[in-house]
């Protein structure tokens, strides 16, 4: 092998290996904002990808719809019921919102405190799926110019799917929650609680590829979390806003150490990368960042 290469080429190869390892080490991890050549490449490619992905998805969706034709009646009944529930909830929400507003006035909340729960939802469409089996990301067609910033949570109508890790002017990259890995330095754990019991606390720290379940750890033994509870983000981490649905508790067991419990959570969203087409990026008000 060495004789094949020759002295000069061998040195060149070694130098380039060192250079590349250095480059990889420097750029390791989620870097957030990109340099301008990267932004340029990402936007050009993202634009071209958008041209292909949507028609391809529409064609695939057409065949999917044909297959689903039989379920239309049942689906219609279920949707009508949901719509009734929605109308009822909307009335309740209006009443509650008004009451909270009045209480906030009475307690003299500052403008910043009042705005703390006013999330802004940016709509975006998926333009491409990362083919790399080890890196769980998708690209969406909204970027810095649309107000997207790194570390914003990304959801679908069903629940949380991930977090923005890189932004170009018109496109950004979303890391899915399937990338969450306890030991990996490239993903973040999610502080979670349950809708049924706001005192519950746990960390979503792992995703099991085989079973498709998220692992929620560091639950106190006295915690009232139980099977069937809806797991939501707690907002304590400061990255994910409060109240985004993550999934449903499937089982709860004692961890190996015997001190804390862990629960397995079935994600609310089908996290198959290709089934996600439209997403919302949730912007939390961050008044402390404004000039």
């Amino acid at each position, binding site marked *: 092998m060495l004789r094949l290469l020759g002295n000069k080429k061998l040195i060149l190869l070694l130098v380039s290996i060192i250079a590349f390892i250095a*480059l*990889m080490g420097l750029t390791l991890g989620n870097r957030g904002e990109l340099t301008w050549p990267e932004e340029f490449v990402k936007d050009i490619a*993202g634009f071209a990808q958008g041209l292909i992905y949507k028609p*391809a998805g529409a064609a695939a969706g057409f065949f999917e719809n044909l297959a689903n034709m039989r379920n239309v009646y049942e689906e219609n009944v279920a949707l009508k019921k949901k719509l009734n529930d929605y109308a009822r909830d909307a009335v309740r929400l209006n009443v509650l919102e008004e009451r909270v507003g009045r209480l906030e006035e009475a307690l003299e909340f500052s403008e910043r405190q009042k705005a703390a729960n006013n999330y802004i939802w940016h709509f975006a469409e998926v333009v491409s*799926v990362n083919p*790399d089996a080890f890196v769980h990301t998708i*690209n969406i067609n909204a970027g810095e110019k649309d107000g997207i910033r790194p570390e914003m949570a990304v959801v679908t109508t069903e629940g949380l799917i991930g977090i923005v890790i890189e932004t170009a002017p018109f496109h950004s990259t979303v890391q899915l929650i399937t990338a969450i*890995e306890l030991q990996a330095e490239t993903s973040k754990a999610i502080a979670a609680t349950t809708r049924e019991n706001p005192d519950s606390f746990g960390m979503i720290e792992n995703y099991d590829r*085989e079973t*498709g379940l998220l692992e929620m750890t560091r639950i106190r033994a006295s915690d009232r979390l139980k099977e069937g509870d809806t797991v939501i983000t707690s907002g304590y981490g400061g990255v994910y806003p409060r109240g985004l649905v993550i999934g449903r508790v499937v089982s709860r067991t004692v961890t190996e150490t015997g001190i804390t419990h862990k629960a397995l959570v079935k994600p609310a969203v089908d996290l198959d990368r290709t089934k996600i087409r439209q997403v919302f990026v949730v912007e939390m008000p961050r008044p402390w960042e404004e000039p």
Partner: protein
Amino acid sequence: MKNRYIFPLIFLLFLAESTLFPWIFPLSWRPVISLTPHFALAGVLFVGVFRNRHQGLLYGLIFGFMHDIVHASPMIGAHAFCMALAGYGAGAAADRMKITLVKTVLVMFAALLFYDWAIYALYRFFRVTFMPFSEMITDFWLPTVLFNLLFIVSIYVPARKLLEGKQDKREEESSGV
């Protein structure tokens, strides 16, 4: 074929990887089998084999960096390095022999093996993935390499026609394609 057509064609393959492929591949298999298309890499390898090793290196660098940037690889340079080296290696190997379909497939198999294993090794080294080696072989590498070899064989004839000059036409017919 003129050189200026090579870039747009591989760029189309690069786009197909992340946009068309997810819709074509049966969705229900995905959670278990992480099949990965290497269409752009296949294009780079063909350039390396049928043009020369320097062009393989150049296109490998370009499309490797493009992959790293567009798909937000955990570290920039992983795909660029592996793709460039695979393209150069395939070109260097092809320089030493008469090109036939079987030899091309063998060279490309070696290049795919290098590419996938090197990417996996880099990801393990930089603590991006923690998939055990045996699991990587069964769930990721075997389906990936089989699928990509199938793809390479299926575009072998048009790719060779496009990349080689007219004077090689006779040789192609005699190679038993």
